């Protein structure tokens, strides 16, 4: 079927800010789909509130609206842009829900807009629990016994008929948000209440518990003519009970015979046919481990995290094909871009094994429960490819960058067999390490299997790794043993630790005996056809297929690895843009990365893609073959920066700012010298290694002080300390992970935090814009609301900032990007920190100023000057609109996490609000972050003593907006004394009804709770904040944020200024 000619202008809905359960995969899918649509001559109007995405670039779509993903906003964009169609299946659950709301309200019909791809009726059939169940029943596909309930009472009554445990799944939520397994009535009531609230339609599915069954997924494609294929199937190593996003997943399935494989495949095709899906779809099954019984868990009628993984695992571009199908093409008409020979109707076949591991945020939220459940908690993931499972797993482990590189990385050796058995019952992110220890201690497979329900095959694979550990430590290290260790991807560092032989010697032994990595292709067809744009993975003991090319210039771009708090999608944005800029300049480009969710690992971004861990050894193996003329590290976040030294040792020149200058910015003493030279002030401070030294420095400076490790991103481990006790506590936490670098203790200065990203060509600098934070210093810059242009500082301060930036960039010999954070106190400007590399704000500032700074930085690195690039050095003129970046958090997903803001970053994503006025921009930014007020016009204020004064002012403003204010005793007193009417509520320790009861009553819009200093989580404040978050109540923990919110509400106006970002610059 040829392309539908009536489709000319398509609106694509993105997925909004990155939150747990909805991450970079949708930027990848959306970007690929937009390019696919443009390739067909279709005009693309893109809407996404997330400025850190590549899909919101002007070269990806024709019109770009970085606006809140809210029905009212979308309606106004549709009225303005008049698209003929809308494609909602690429923006994750967020995009799908919006498309559904627009369709169901009749708005699309009135405006003559078609829903492309899967129809609204189909989406409803797949998403609505009851309709889905009825549909499955009709075609004889089994679902676990279940019932959709809308009240807690119904849930309890139904569970009585099927028995505990039961699984709870709220309808229309992300990443299993609000779901869980209930083993008794108390758990059932608590999860159910939470789930009913989180569901858009107030429905939760109560389901027979099939925990322990094999969890299998199929990625299916179907076109409008009814042709279906499965792209890939995947098996979760962690059986049903752990969200697939948090499971270790292998592709293809390893423990299914043809009978099981085809049974489920046929079922997946039956389902997608019955649902009449056009495009991509994900079907999840639970398969009984000792029979042919299976249940359909769920169907996602859209591209998903799993489809991104399946795309990268097979080379089949699901989003691209889905977009073509939406335009009317059939599978047999769409060419497979990897082979250039086969068609999209060809099912990929793999000749390798893929392992995906989740990147869990427990290193950020040390108070959170590590338990894995049906509620997804991972912020990101890594994927690795090898020709054997053990090797793929080993590569995935070291790709995580969590100080792990083998199964010995978490030490459970102190536990006895009995204790290990007990420990195995805990399902958490350390389970494979516990199994490994159990195997070391001789626990038999059956026992491990009975506890974990992990298949014997996987247990045996872990055993093979354990046996290799033993063989290596028993010695001697023969060439044969080394070969075998490398085949299953033991890194040299681990072999060295186990054998006691130095890494250098092991490397030499390897090279002398030809034990080097070879590279194989991902080609969708197991070598049956020649591939045109393949990508590579390493294996040992095989023929190398990665042919060294000899272009005039070849550059290595290092990616940023898994998405984690503090190092997110922004760095992928930078890596991709740098790659494109190098390609434009005539370079052959090579990307190394291991994150399957990203655009950078799409098959056609770089000339060559190596899907590999980002460790020195893995990079060196690639360098040995490719011999690049230079490497770029400044775009890949800390992951890439950490590789600088190793790259230099390999003889690869670092393009742009030199490594020693990067060091100078991080090294306290060197940096102090530079500041002295350039006469730029900073907060007084010192470098320490021990708690005693830290206390000494702190007392000399006077509390409060800022304590932080050097060489980290996202303020990891950074804390404000007000006493010796806190210094002790923080130093303990920081030192839990071995520190190669010293710890910094600085005087804490309270002022306005200012951030600058600049390009420097060695002589001149270009500052696209100055960003000012709403929150005063002390809140991590990534968690602050950031305003462009800076709106409260004087021209004199702006001049100072520009001048300081120039001096610092020159002193550090920056060639490329530099990011500086300042504090402005009155007319004084202090430097907080300097990062001579790309930063989190680069995509944001590029988009709102229209200045492509990554491209400029890349050009500068290869020798162009800012003037040559057509820019006047210095601070660029300010825009006549405001663009506000709002952090977005995923606190509701992480049980037990402290939500109050501080110097350590906690947000997972961001969104943008653009407006003609500051207030409008702010309103949109809050709206984009999901703060859509008012609903009930009731709020709670409970603040620490120091904030009481500001609370009065805030209270007055909220009162004026018609809010009823509840407050705890002393806050209420302060408010009432000042003439702001506040109703007193009891503290938690007092008798009911307390402040918690009030929150749980679902009548509260907002909680403002500023935490008292200190980390004691047993305090009331912690409970109030957690309860608010888990009940879906907006909770604000900084007075500045609260003030911004009330300012935005004072402006609330439903007619928005819509700015096409593609037209800026």
């Amino acid at each position, binding site marked *: 079927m040829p392309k539908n000619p009536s489709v000319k202008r398509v609106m694509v809905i993105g997925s909004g800010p990155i939150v747990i359960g909805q991450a970079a995969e949708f930027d990848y899918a959306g970007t690929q789909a937009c390019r696919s649509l443009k390739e067909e001559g279709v005009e693309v109007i893109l809407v996404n509130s997330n400025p850190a995405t590549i899909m919101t670039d002007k070269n990806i779509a024709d019109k770009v609206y970085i606006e809140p993903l809210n029905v009212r906003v979308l309606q106004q964009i549709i009225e303005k842009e008049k698209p003929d169609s809308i494609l909602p299946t690429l923006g994750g659950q967020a995009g799908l829900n919006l498309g559904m709301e627009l369709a169901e309200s009749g708005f699309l019909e009135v405006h003559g807009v078609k829903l492309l791809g899967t129809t609204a009726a189909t989406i409803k059939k797949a998403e609505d629990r009851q309709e889905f169940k009825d549909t499955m029943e009709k075609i*004889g*596909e*089994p679902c676990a016994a279940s019932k959709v309930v809308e009240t807690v009472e119904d849930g309890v009554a139904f569970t009585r008929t099927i028995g505990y445990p039961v699984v709870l799944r709220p309808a229309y939520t992300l990443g299993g948000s609000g779901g869980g397994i209930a083993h008794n009535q108390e758990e059932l009531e608590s999860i159910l209440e939470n789930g009913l609230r989180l569901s858009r339609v107030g429905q939760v599915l109560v389901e027979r518990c099939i925990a322990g069954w094999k969890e299998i997924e199929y990625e299916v494609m179907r076109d409008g*003519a*009814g*042709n279906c*294929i*499965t792209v890939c199937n995947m098996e979760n190593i962690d059986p049903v009970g752990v969200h697939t996003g948090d499971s270790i997943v292998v592709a*293809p*399935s*390893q*423990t*299914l*015979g*043809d009978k099981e*494989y*085809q*049974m489920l*495949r*046929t*079922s997946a*095709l039956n389902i997608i046919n019955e649902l009449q899906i056009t495009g991509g779809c994900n079907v999840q099954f639970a398969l*009984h481990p000792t*029979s*042919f*019984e*299976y249940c359909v868990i769920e169907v996602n009628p859209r591209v998903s995290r799993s489809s991104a993984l399946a795309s990268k695992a097979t080379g089949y571009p699901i989003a691209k094909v889905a977009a073509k199908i939406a335009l009317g093409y*059939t*599978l*047999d008409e769409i060419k497979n871009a990897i082979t250039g*020979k*086969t*068609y999209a*109707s*060809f*099912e*990929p*076949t*793999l*000749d*390798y*094994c893929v392992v995906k591991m989740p990147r869990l945020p427990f290193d950020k939220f040390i108070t959170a429960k590590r338990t894995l459940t049906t509620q997804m908690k991972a912020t990101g993931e890594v994927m690795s490819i090898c*020709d*054997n*499972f053990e090797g793929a797993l080993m590569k995935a482990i070291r790709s995580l960058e969590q100080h792990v590189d083998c199964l010995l990385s978490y030490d459970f050796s102190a536990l006895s067999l009995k204790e290990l058995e007990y420990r195995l019952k805990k399902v958490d992110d350390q389970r494979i390490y516990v199994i490994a220890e159990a195997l070391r201690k001789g626990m038999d497979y059956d026992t491990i299997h009975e506890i974990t329900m992990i*298949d*014997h*095959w996987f247990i*045996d*694979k872990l055993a093979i790794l354990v046996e290799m550990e033993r063989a290596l430590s028993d010695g001697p290290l023969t060439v044969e043993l080394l070969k075998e260790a490398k085949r299953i991807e033991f890194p040299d560092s681990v072999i060295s630790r186990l054998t006691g032989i130095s890494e250098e010697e092991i490397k030499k032994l390897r090279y002398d005996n030809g034990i080097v990595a070879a590279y*194989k292709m991902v080609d969708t*067809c*197991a*070598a*049956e*056809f*020649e591939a045109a744009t393949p990508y590579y993975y390493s294996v040992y003991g*095989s*023929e190398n*297929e990665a042919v060294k090319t000899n272009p005039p210039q070849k550059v290595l771009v290092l990616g940023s690895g898994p998405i984690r708090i503090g190092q997110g999608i922004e760095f992928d944005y930078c890596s991709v843009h740098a790659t494109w800029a190098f390609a434009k300049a005539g370079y052959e480009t090579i990307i190394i990365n291991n994150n399957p969710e990203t655009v950078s690992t799409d098959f056609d971004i770089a000339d060559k893609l190596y899907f590999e861990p980002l460790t020195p050894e893995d990079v060196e193996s690639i360098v040995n073959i490719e011999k690049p003329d230079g490497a770029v590290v400044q775009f890949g976040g800390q992951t890439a920066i950490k590789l600088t030294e190793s790259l230099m040792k390999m003889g690869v020149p670092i393009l742009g700012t030199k490594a020693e200058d990067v060091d100078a910015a991080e090294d306290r003493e060197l940096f102090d010298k530079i500041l002295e030279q350039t006469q730029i002030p900073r907060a007084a401070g010192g470098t320490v290694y021990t708690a005693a030294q830290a206390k000494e420095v702190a007392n000399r400076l006077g509390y409060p002080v800022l304590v932080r490790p050097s060489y980290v991103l996202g303020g990891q481990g950074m804390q404000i300390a007000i006493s010796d006790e806190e210094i002790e506590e923080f130093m303990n936490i920081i030192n839990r992970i071995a520190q190669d670098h010293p710890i910094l203790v600085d005087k804490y200065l309270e002022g306005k935090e200012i951030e600058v990203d600049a390009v420097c060509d060695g002589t001149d600098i270009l500052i696209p814009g100055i960003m000012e934070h709403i929150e005063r210093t002390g809140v991590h810059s990534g968690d602050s609301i950031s305003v462009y242009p800076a709106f409260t500082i004087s021209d004199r301060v702006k001049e100072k900032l520009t001048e300081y930036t120039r001096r610092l960039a020159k002193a550090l010999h920056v060639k490329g990007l530099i990011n500086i954070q300042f504090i402005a106190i009155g007319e004084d400007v202090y430097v907080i920190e300097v990062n001579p590399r790309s930063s989190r704000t680069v995509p944001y500032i590029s988009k709102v100023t229209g200045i492509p700074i990554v491209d400029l930085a890349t050009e500068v690195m290869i020798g162009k000057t800012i003037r040559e690039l057509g820019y006047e050095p210095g601070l660029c003129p300010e825009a006549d609109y405001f663009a506000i970046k709002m952090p977005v958090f995923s606190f509701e997903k992480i049980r037990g996490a402290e939500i109050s803001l501080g110097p350590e970053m906690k947000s997972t994503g961001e969104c943008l609000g653009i407006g003609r006025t500051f207030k409008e921009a702010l309103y949109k930014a809050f709206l984009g972050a999901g703060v859509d007020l008012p609903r009930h016009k009731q709020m709670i204020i409970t603040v620490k003593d120091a904030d009481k004064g500001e609370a009065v002012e805030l209270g007055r403003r909220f009162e004026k907006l018609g809010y009823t204010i509840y407050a705890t005793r002393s806050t209420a007193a302060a408010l009432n004394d000042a003439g702001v009417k506040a109703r007193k509520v009891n503290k938690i320790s007092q008798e009911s009804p307390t402040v918690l009861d009030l929150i749980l009553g679902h009548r509260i819009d907002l909680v403002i709770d500023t935490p008292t200093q200190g980390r004691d989580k047993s305090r009331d404040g912690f409970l109030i904040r957690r309860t608010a978050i888990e009940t879906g109540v907006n909770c604000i923990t900084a007075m500045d944020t609260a003030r911004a919110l009330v300012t935005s509400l004072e402006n609330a106006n439903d007619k928005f200024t819509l700015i096409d970002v593609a037209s800026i610059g």
Partner: protein
Amino acid sequence: MKAFLILEDGTVFAGTSIGARREVISEIVFNTSMAGYLEVLTDPSYAGQAICMTYPLIGNYGVCREDMESKKPWPDGFIVRELSRMASNFRKDITIQEFLEQYDIPGIAGIDTRALTKILREKGTMNGMITTNEAYNLNTILPQLKSYTTGKVVEKVTCSHKYEIKGVTSLSENGPLSGQAKFDREAFVNGQREMRPSITKELNGKGKRVALLDLGAKDNIAHSLAQRGCDVTIYPAFTKAEEILADRPDGIMLSNGPGDPKECVEVIEEIKKLYESDVPIFAICLGHQLMALATGADTFKMKYGHRGGNHPVKDLRTGRVYISSQNHGYVVDTDRLNPGVAVPAFVNVNDGTNEGLSYTGKNIFTVQFHPEACPGPQDSSYLFDRFIQMMEEEKNA
């Protein structure tokens, strides 16, 4: 123990011996299925060939005898990247190692199967030797390899005498309908395993008598018919047409089978007679090629064939595309097809080669791929229903 795979072009792969230790010369082919190694091994069409599995991890779920597609494995050799030491599946009888040893199939593991596949892709299918003799001499081996021909293999794989499989009389005999299996813990604990699920939803073949000419048939061809209620009589490949027609079948199936179709001179002669009868005929793979040859068309050897479970074939009657199970090295030459006799019914979406023919003015249709699946996708099982419908129409005509 060390083992070597020596190719006709002089390439030598060193690996580890698996299965039997004996030396073997065979035609080397690759199969891209990711699951279903047992079904591949027991597919008689592989007689005279050694199979390289492109998926690197083989043996993960062991061997369940119930899943064998014939009474024994047929390939001359088995070539894998890695044979799993752990066989994990609730239905497992033995490991694949034990299976290969039991049936005296030699093989090699630990070689770069992708490199081998690329050689076969680029240079075409070629002969090779699997040996454990470390002192092999290429000068004597290579001429041996070059002169090796598969020869007539159908006679090796066909049944020795005619026999019958009765069609089921109720759907429940087929085991649970796929999706309807209910786990019976007690039965499982007692060592009883549930039957594998069936996708047959209708006994539309009840009362039909089908003659199946066994050219090396996979069991699931007869099963697919029997599960729909057909009584199936299986005839040795060299049965005379008159004998088959004398049994007055409602329909005739020509099965899959090994080797060069042009070697089957005698069978082709009999098929000519079957063509002349008015009995509906459905043929698969070798049967499809033989019907083409019997009616004046030609076949040729492909460079490296189609072997796997992922090839898209288009039903030209409906325009629909199905993913098919494939195993063939020869193909019907559509350039030399007489449209008065037969027209293409299915085409391979990737390379445009013929995947099926519909015979003009005749109740005959034939396919190159494997609607009986096992291993591979079950998408085209509807063709058995189409055949049953043909028989029904013929009966009513």
